[in-house]
């Protein structure tokens, strides 16, 4: 990996000299064909700057996960444009799409850890895609597991971890490579209040240090104030977009 996708230090927060992390214009999305076709997202316009921490909330079934998977290039947009870090991902050939995903960090509603791998190895899988020495990888893995309160569980496989611990390993895996954009779907759902705080602090830290943009779906009103922006999605439409405290 090189250039745009590398690990060059980004000292300040939101870089204004580069394209926004996310630009969504006129996005529509529907599942199914013909009669069964069901619109899920309608006329979405959204821009997220680098170094911005955005929370998306809304009732169940409102299309939050669908929006996240479109922005993460896991689905192809049907109508409208999606520019992530300045690249129009609707137009990317498959091979470039595969590489493009290395710049992202996904945290899924289900943790999706590898049963055969230890916490340490799971996280290393993420770093293995990047050109780092083993020492560097090791330092990063140990550091992130420590900050997430998992120092004791480095070499545990998922079967021996609690639900919350698994979720934290999955979070570590998604952010250890300091991605440009983190897409997190209910990352704190399985966590108690203390651990939720720790995770949000990690996100804030990442945003501050590396200018990563975070797009996080959550229903948990307690965490809203951590975000720079709060977006409300109802029935596939953005109904409000505000800064907490506004």
């Amino acid at each position, binding site marked *: 990996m090189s250039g745009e996708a590398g690990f060059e230090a980004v000292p300040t927060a939101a870089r204004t000299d580069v394209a926004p992390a996310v630009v969504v214009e006129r996005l529509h999305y529907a599942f199914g064909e013909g009669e069964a076709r069901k619109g899920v997202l309608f006329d979405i316009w959204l821009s997220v700057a680098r170094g911005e921490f955005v929370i998306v909330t809304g009732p169940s079934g409102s299309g939050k996960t669908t929006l996240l998977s479109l922005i993460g290039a*896991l689905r192809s947009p049907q109508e409208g444009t999606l520019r992530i870090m300045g690249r129009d991902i609707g137009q990317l050939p498959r091979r470039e799409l595969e590489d493009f995903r290395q710049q992202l960090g*996904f945290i899924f509603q289900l943790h999706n850890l*590898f049963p055969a791998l230890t916490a340490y*190895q799971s996280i290393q899988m993420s770093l293995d895609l990047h050109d780092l020495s083993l020492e560097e990888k090791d330092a990063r893995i140990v550091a992130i597991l420590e900050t997430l309160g998992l120092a004791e569980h480095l070499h545990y496989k998922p079967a021996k971890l609690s639900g919350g611990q698994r979720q934290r390993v999955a979070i570590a895996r998604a952010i250890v490579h300091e991605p440009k954009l983190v897409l997190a779907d209910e990352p704190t759902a399985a966590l108690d209040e203390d651990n939720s705080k720790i995770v949000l602090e990690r996100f804030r830290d990442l945003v501050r240090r590396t200018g990563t943009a975070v797009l996080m779906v959550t229903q948990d009103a307690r965490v809203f104030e951590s975000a720079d922006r709060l977006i409300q999605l109802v029935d596939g439409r953005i109904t409000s977009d505000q800064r907490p405290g506004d």
Partner: protein
Amino acid sequence: MAASERTRWILRPQTVPFVRQAIAHRKRRTAVAVSGIAFAILVVFVQLGFYGAVVNTALAISSKLDADVLLVSPRFVHLSQANSIPRVRLFQTLALSEVVSATPLYLRYARWREPLTGESCKLFALGFPLISGAPLVLPGIEEQLGAIEPSNTLLADTLMRPECGPFAPDGAVEVREQVAHVTGRFELGVGFLGDGAILMSDDTFARLFSSHSLDRVHLGLVKLAPGVDPELAAGKLREILPEDTRVVSRGELQGLLERHWVENTAVGNIFGMGTVAGFFVGVVVLFQVLSADIRTQLPLYATLKAMGYRDTKLYRYVLEQSWVFALLGFVPALIVTSSLFPLIRGATNLPVFMTPGLAGFVLVLSLGMCTLAGTLSLRRISTAEPAELF
């Protein structure tokens, strides 16, 4: 950093040994997969072992013939269906200064009965003039020629089927309903050709097969002066001999026999096809194992895709896994086969041998089998849909 610390970093794999972890993590599944594959490889081994025995059968006698050039009938099919040429053709070859000698060899199946047990056997009989020396290059045979000077005496193959005897102390047997005596032994082994071989003088051959005239020769063994090129001499012989006689080098004769045994006999076809069948059984078994494995692991593959792992990288994981399976299955199959072949030899006298060549060939086949199955199961990977993960 301490030196030992540094070596730890150097020795550690640069990336997570994903395949090794996956295989070691699911020991039970791995064991099931590997035993299926080991069985398929074992089948291939046994089939190829017998196939090798068919080839060895073709070469058993022909590779031991003491001749540089051979005269056969144009209608020669194989040793027990040789048809014949006039004996005078042998004398004609002596017109060439390159030819040192030309010996007739008479070939026939002989029904043999062990008089004490009544066991009946089918032996391959070779008759030749004692004066010309032994027609086969075998250790200790020349010294025993005196023992078959009396009529109806024979040298018998020690690798004969054990039930064939002879069990009488004086070596008495019945050959074509006449009494004969085994007065010496040699070690040859004829595989699928029959239960064993017997050597006798042309006189005895004429007595036992009274319908056969010694003027009709089945195989002419021509020996050349030292340093003479057999191909060249064969060319000259073709010029002086008429159409009723075909001149072949020893290599050509072996080729003819090998082709006959491999292509035109039931055993050749069965074991040839058995090998192919074993191979495809292996492919199917492994394909089932691998694609079931991929199916249960789809969310993981989808996760890897979402992380930015390329499809090609995932293909490599699947292929690597199938190669590890191939190697893990090969080792027990090799061990079992190596101890099975001596048992088969003991029970059947068939020349089935474990050779480095066979082991290497089966290893290559096993890897090919697993690569093919792995490739077939790759299609499933593309059904891993990262969009379903959220």
